[in-house]
């Protein structure tokens, strides 16, 4: 699925809730504060939507009107410093699966198009993040297909 197809599918979903997009300045500021590169499909998502998704699966993000619970910078800092197991600094969380596990981008594996990995809260601080998709767009496509099939 291409990004345009994702956009169409997302916006045509009855339970879609997204922002209006983040500016380059906002993304760069987040990169600076979090000290990780934000590239590839997720950056595209941030630029186009900013934050959100379906009600069942809301993505963290940036930009105008971002709810506190989806604020990428706030959540990432909290997951690194306050939550257990502490999120490694090279993992950028993009979504909570609803039980405290985090869908993340592994920014060290391939900074330009980072793979998607799972950080399982039950697996302790020494876990090796579990690869789940080669890139953000693939992961988002699969997730949307699964949820669309649920309707």
């Amino acid at each position, binding site marked *: 699925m291409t990004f345009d197809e994702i956009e169409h599918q997302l916006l045509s979903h009855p339970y879609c809730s997204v922002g209006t997009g983040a500016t380059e300045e906002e993304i760069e500021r987040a990169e600076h504060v979090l000290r990780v590169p934000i590239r590839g499909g997720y950056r595209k998502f941030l630029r186009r939507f900013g934050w959100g998704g379906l009600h*069942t699966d809301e993505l963290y993000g940036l930009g105008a009107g971002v709810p506190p619970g989806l604020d990428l910078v706030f959540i990432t800092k909290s997951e690194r410093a*306050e939550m257990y197991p502490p999120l490694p600094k090279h993992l950028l969380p993009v979504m909570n699966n*609803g*039980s*405290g596990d985090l869908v993340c981008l592994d920014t060290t594996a391939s900074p330009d198009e980072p793979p998607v990995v799972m950080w399982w809260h*039950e697996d*302790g601080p020494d876990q090796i993040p579990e690869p789940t998709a080669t890139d953000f767009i693939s992961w988002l496509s699969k997730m949307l297909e699964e949820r669309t099939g649920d309707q």
Partner: protein
Amino acid sequence: MKGRIFDPKVGRFLTTDPLVTAPLSGQSWNPYSYVWNNPLSYVDPTGFEPTVVMHCCQEINDANGFPLGMRQWYEVVDSEPQDQANREAIQTGSSPPPVDVGTTGNSSGYVPQPVTTAPTDWTPNRSSWSQHPVVQIDGGFIGGLALGSVPIAGPVVSLAAGATIGPGKREARIGKAIGEMVGGLFLTLGGITGELIGTGLTTTGIGALLGVPAMAVSAGLVTSGMGSMALGAWELADALMSKGSGSGGSGSTGSSGRVSGAELAEKRAEFNRMKPEIWKQEAATNPGKYSQENLERMRQGGALKDSNGVSMEIHHKIPLASGGTNEPSNFSIMTKDQHRLGPNFKANHPDLPRRP
């Protein structure tokens, strides 16, 4: 440091640590080490026991909300009392829970449920009393003693029951196995005594007619007693190696054993598939507990939001990685902080891996 003397010139302790505070940790047995050689996570102001250092952060923003930086500090946490108090407060619901006022400020208010499995009430005259481990062991022991003391009763009952009833609680099985071994020992000793008496009667020629049958019966008792002991030993080993309850009572929260690989992956995928339905069910079951805004979101399969607009999390009371299930009885709705904030994580997931 009150408990030990430290020489700053040589950078060494002059006295050993008087306590082994964590016998299962190798570092704890080193009498000259400081906080288990993990000074990044612990401090030891008393000199007797390491305590947790909590890293605290607070974002500092300018008037426009632009992040200027982070204020960071460390707090010493008296870990065990803190954890215990936290756990008890969580379990009993005694701490004031956060209230969902909704972003429009007109909600009926969400009060989180007690967040972990309620402590078991062992008070007499409650149905749970029969599940107490001591009662289970005692009951199992008495039953096992009866079975072990009656020739071939143990094997017969085990074979007959195996196909019809579950293996029972682990404690009861341990008690039964020990009882069978003790009963079998009594039977064996009785048989040996009978053998000796029978032999005596036979050799003296006084009562060969009595002695020979007595020896035959005694031999049977010895054989049966040894069989009971062997069966008890087998069942004891089996019970000790088992993961937990084998039948009845505790439902999905009854056992714990590490799960990994494909089984764990399937459980996690199952949770992901059923997540929207969980929230829909919660909205249908408890509509009076939530704001209209939250109810609407939950009816669409979205997560309940707390008063800060952060999605609530579904905690597995018995973690999936510890054998828990995706049954509603294993769920507990919590805020992110209640679920995973530092000490709360430990209280909610006592059996999961942590750094020593």
